[in-house]
């Protein structure tokens, strides 16, 4: 039995997810800068204003703190808001609302004030947008108890994670890497529910575990293919949810392969990659045959020039080289 499949991009999948959510639940609405008339800065919400009208597709002023906070208030008031922030760099203007309110109110109120809010934003570099549009700060948000951090890296997740996030009674931040929007593939015509609790094994392998998420997943999978040609069989774990971390899947993989390399577009210092390396060493140190290795972005504000930007980011060659070193080194 063959099921109907549609060809689409990651961007289309996100749009379909929004449409489905708006159709399924009258409490759902989208608000953010240029989500309506403009169609979304990255064209994710194009056409939705015409379909759902200005009450549910709300263009906001350039007031990140006010409209993110309004999302919190609307969630407290019984709605299921989806707030779009253009980029993670702009989300810093709403940090007060996200960290001081969204993340705290449930605990601080003794369980009274749940905030079923979804905040979507673009993250990452690769489009020569320089140092105020290109950073990967999702690891910062993953530091904060009370938030769930999702990083869809496949068409299935782009399509399925939004509904799962809306079903979460607590605030969820979804990070869409800008390098993924044009990712192309096919999906079943009907939506498929996805799990947002677990990391995913994207490629099985025996020799080492490559741990990544979001925009570096395609690069990591490409590196794994290249490694296979050299006779190195790499397993690839896509974290998918940076908080809470699915340590079980991660640790089970590393316990099998005995070697781990973390690939993260965030900076290295005080980072998510540091957290993952620490968890592995805390939990399964004696399973390791080599030190946990990392490939991260260079510790610079992201430069504009193409060659410098490329040099600052994790690339397939760098991942392959680091994996090779990890496989040949001994703990």
């Amino acid at each position, binding site marked *: 039995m063959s099921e109907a499949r549609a060809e689409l991009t990651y961007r289309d999948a996100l749009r379909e997810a929004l449409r489905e959510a708006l159709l399924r639940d009258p409490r759902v609405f989208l608000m953010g800068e240029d989500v309506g008339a403009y169609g979304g800065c990255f064209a994710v919400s194009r056409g939705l204003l015409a379909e759902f009208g200005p009450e549910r597709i709300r263009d906001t002023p350039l007031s990140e703190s*006010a409209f993110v906070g*309004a999302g919190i*208030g609307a969630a407290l008031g019984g709605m299921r808001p989806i707030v779009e922030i253009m980029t993670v760099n702009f989300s810093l203007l709403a940090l*007060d609302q996200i960290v001081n309110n969204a993340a705290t109110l449930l605990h*601080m*109120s003794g*369980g009274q004030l749940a905030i079923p809010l979804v905040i979507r934003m673009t993250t990452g570099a690769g489009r020569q947008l320089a140092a105020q549009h290109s950073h990967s700060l999702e690891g910062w948000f993953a530091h904060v108890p009370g938030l769930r951090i999702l990083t869809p890296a496949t068409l299935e997740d782009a399509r399925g994670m939004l509904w799962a996030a809306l079903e979460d009674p607590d605030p969820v931040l979804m990070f869409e890497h800008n390098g993924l929007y044009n990712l192309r593939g096919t999906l079943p015509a009907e939506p498929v529910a996805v799990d947002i609790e677990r990391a995913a094994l994207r490629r099985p392998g025996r020799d080492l575990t490559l741990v990544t998420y979001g925009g570096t997943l395609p690069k990591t999978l490409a590196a794994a293919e290249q490694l296979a040609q050299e006779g190195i069989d790499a397993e690839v774990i896509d974290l998918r949810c940076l908080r809470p971390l699915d340590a079980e899947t991660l640790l089970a993989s590393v316990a099998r392969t005995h070697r781990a390399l973390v690939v993260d577009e965030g900076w290295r210092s005080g980072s998510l990659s540091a957290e993952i390396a620490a968890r592995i060493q805390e939990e399964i140190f004696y399973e390791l045959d080599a030190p946990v290795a990392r490939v991260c972005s260079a510790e610079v504000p992201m430069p504009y020039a193409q060659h410098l930007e490329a040099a600052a980011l994790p690339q397939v060659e760098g991942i392959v080289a680091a994996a090779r070193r990890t496989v040949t080194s001994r703990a």
Partner: protein
Amino acid sequence: MKEPSLRQALALLRVMMLIRRFEEKCAELYSAEKIRGFLHLYVGEEAVAVGVCAALEPDDAVVATYREHGHALARGVAAGPILAEMYGKLEGCCRGRGGSMHLFDASRRFYGGNAIVGGGLPIAVGLALADRMQGRAGVTACFFGEGAVAEGEFHESMNLAALWRLPVLFCCENNLYAMGTALARSESQLDLCLKAASYGMPAWPVDGMDVLAVEAATRQAALAARAGGGPVFLELRTYRFRAHSMFDPELYRERSEVERWKERDPIRALVERLRCEGALDDAALAELERGCDEEIARAVEFAEAGTLEPVSELTRFVTSDRSAA
């Protein structure tokens, strides 16, 4: 004053007196180290919370600041759970997780204690948006001090509420000092109503030492907002009689200024007025005082008898309980 007005005035007087007694008791309990953390008292400003809350309906929402014991009491949260919260007890209105600055009561739509100046305003806009989108007639009263007017969140929220014509009552408690910084030392424009009016919303100065004036202004503002007229800004001119917090040596204002404002004590003013109207005599006043004292004594008993949340519950409610779902 007509008979129903007199009855209502007496009811308002009672809540103001309860707040005053409650705050005085808090200061005493702080010195006795029963209450810790920051403690911000509302003495002198009672007419603002009491007047505004008296004009609200049960389905309306209230967002307040970190100086919000008075707002919680005026909204009907019982003194016992508020005090138990400050004791850090499980029986507190937030299980002792919030303390003095973070009082909440979802059942009364009291989204109270916000300790980031200006941080509550965007939430109020969202609560009003939710009411509007769901076809409910509620309004959201959002309290903040005049210090918040310098914050970006104030301007962003005023603009958004006005742009979307949302039923928010922006209740600015102008007590002249942001902690120790006088308005004139922090604002280039001292006319706060002018700032609000620039966003295209009605903005009225109100004598915040006169509970009946506050109640009347709020009632009028709520009526307009409920009818779809958009937000209203109320500048409630008031004064804090006590220090900013228990750590404040009050170096920034003259004692004589405080004494001048105390002459306009909102409780004393209403008592005088009701006496003139013949609605209150010494015996009735003593009876009111006794009632408040008893309520406070019961609250202290309740807090003292409270229990500590088991440490095993420490991480409960970081996220919602899923087991029940």
